[in-house]
C-alpha cells in the first residue's frame, strides 16, 4: 500500500502544539508548508492542527477536514449512479468521481455498464487526474485495484488516515499481522476489512482507538498491547 508522506511520527516529536487559524507560526526564513499561509513575510496557520517545524519549512497537520483528492491517491468508493458509459462513484469528497468504462479492467459495451457493477458496490480505485476545477478522474486499471466483495467498510476522518497507516505503514502492518484480516486503507478515510468476524471486530476497535487517540504518543505500542491482550484472553 502506498503511503503518503508521513506527518508527526509516534516518538520523534514530544511537544505537540495545537494551533488555530490565524496563529503566527514564524517570522521569516522558512517555506510555508501545507495548512499555512504567508503574508507580509510572516507565516500563519490556516487550519486548526498540530504545528510541525522542519528545517526548511513549517506546516500544520490538520485535525479535521474533508478529503480533497490528489493524483495518485488510493481510495475506496461506492457506486452511486450508473450511466451508459460510466459509473458515478462517491469517494467521500466534495467532488463526485466518474469512472469511465475505459478505466475498468473489463471490456464493457456501451449501455452495458449495469452488467458489471451495481449501485452500492464498493470499489478500490486510484485517482489518476485532478484538474484546476477539481474534476476527478479515477481508474481501476492498476495492480490490485478491483471491485471489493465481502468484508466491511468503516469510515474514519480523512485527516486521521496517516495515523491508521503509521510511519512507513507500521500501524497497518501490525493490524494486519495481529488480526489476520485483509485491510485496505483509502486516503479518503474509508477502510475495507475482511476476515473472521471476531477478527474484524477487533480490527475495527483498534482502528477506532487509533482515531480517537490519533495524536497521543506511543500509539503503535498501545494498539499492539490492546490487540495482544485480546488474543491472550481467547487462548
Amino acid at each position, binding site marked *: 500500500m502506498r503511503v503518503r508522506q508521513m506527518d508527526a511520527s509516534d516518538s520523534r516529536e514530544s511537544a505537540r502544539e495545537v494551533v488555530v487559524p490565524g496563529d503566527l507560526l514564524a517570522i521569516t526564513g522558512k517555506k510555508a508548508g501545507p495548512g499555512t499561509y504567508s503574508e507580509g513575510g510572516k507565516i500563519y496557520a490556516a487550519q486548526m492542527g498540530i504545528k510541525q517545524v522542519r528545517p526548511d519549512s513549517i506546516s500544520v497537520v490538520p485535525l479535521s477536514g*474533508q478529503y480533497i483528492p490528489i493524483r495518485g491517491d488510493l481510495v475506496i468508493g461506492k457506486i452511486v449512479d450508473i450511466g451508459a458509459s460510466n459509473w458515478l462513484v462517491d469517494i467521500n469528497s466534495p467532488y463526485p468521481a466518474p469512472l469511465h468504462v475505459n478505466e475498468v479492467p473489463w471490456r464493457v459495451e456501451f449501455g452495458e455498464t449495469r452488467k458489471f457493477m451495481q449501485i452500492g458496490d464498493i470499489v478500490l480505485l486510484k485517482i489518476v487526474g485532478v484538474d484546476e476545477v477539481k474534476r476527478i478522474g479515477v481508474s481501476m486499471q492498476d495492480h490490485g485495484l478491483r471491485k471489493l466483495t465481502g468484508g466491511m467498510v468503516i469510515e474514519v476522518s480523512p485527516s486521521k488516515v496517516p495515523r491508521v497507516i503509521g510511519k512507513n505503514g507500521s500501524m497497518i502492518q501490525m493490524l494486519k499481522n495481529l488480526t489476520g484480516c485483509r485491510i485496505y486503507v483509502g486516503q479518503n478515510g474509508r477502510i475495507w476489512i475482511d476476515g473472521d468476524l471476531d477478527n474484524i471486530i477487533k480490527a475495527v476497535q483498534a482502528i477506532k482507538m487509533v482515531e480517537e487517540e490519533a495524536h497521543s504518543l506511543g500509539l503503535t505500542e498501545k494498539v499492539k498491547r490492546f490487540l495482544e491482550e485480546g488474543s491472550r484472553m481467547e487462548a
Partner: protein
Amino acid sequence: MGGTPTDLKMIDENGLRLDGRRPDEMRPLKIEAGVLKRADGSAYVEWGLNKVMAAVYGPRECHPRHLQNPERALVQCHYNMASFSVDDRKRPGPDRRSHEISKIISEALTHVVFTEYFPRTSIDVYIEVLQANAGTRCAGLTAASVALADAGVPMRDLVASCAAGKVADTIVLDLAKEEDNFGSADMPMGYVPNTGEIVLLQMDGDLTQEEFEKALKMDIEACKKVHDIQRDALRRRYSQKTDAPEYASGPEVKGVA
C-alpha cells in the same frame, strides 16, 4: 430603535448599567467547540443570556448546481431563531431579518475563508439561536467562525464580533436586550484581529462622528478579547481528554454499508 421612551434608568448614579456592568464591559462569554457529532464542525456560544449553536458542513458538493462557482467555494450561512428564543413566540421560518443576517454573516466569513481551495463546492454554516437577548448576530458570527475552524476549513483568521452602541447618551459595549430596545443606537461589528479588517459593520440608530469613533474603538478592543476566547475554546477541544465536558463529541468511526 431610536429610543422608545421608558422609565428604566439605563445608567445609574455610579455609572453602572442595568445589569451592573460598566459602559465598556462585555457580558460574560463562554464558547465550546465541537459539540455536535454529526456536523463536520460545530460550536456553542453563551454570551450573557444569548445561547447560540453553530454547525458547519463541508466543503461539500454545491446544490443547486447553478450556484456553483468554478473558481471558489461558496460560503452559505443560514441564520435561524428558534420559536422559543424570545418572549413572544417567534413565528418560525425565514423572514426579512434572518435573510439579512444570513447574508452579512456569509459575506463576513467569505472574507477569511480560503475559498479558492475548494472550487465548485459550498461550505454550509447553520446558526441556530436558542435564546436571544440582543446581539445574536455577533454571537452567531463568533460561533460560526469557531465552528468553521473546528471543521478544518482553511481560513486566514477567526472572525471576532461584538456590538457597541449608545444608551442614555453614553457609548456602551455589548448592549443587552433592554438597552437595545430603549437605547438610541446599536452597532454590531465583525473584526479580523490579525489584519485589522472590518468584515461586518452595521448601525441601527444615529451616532455623531465622535461617538462613532469611540464606539468603533471600544468594539475593536472587545473583538480582540472575543478572539482570545475563541482561540482558547478551539485549543481546549484537543488538549486533555479528561477535562473535556461530557457533551463534547470525540471522533467517531462511522459504519457504512
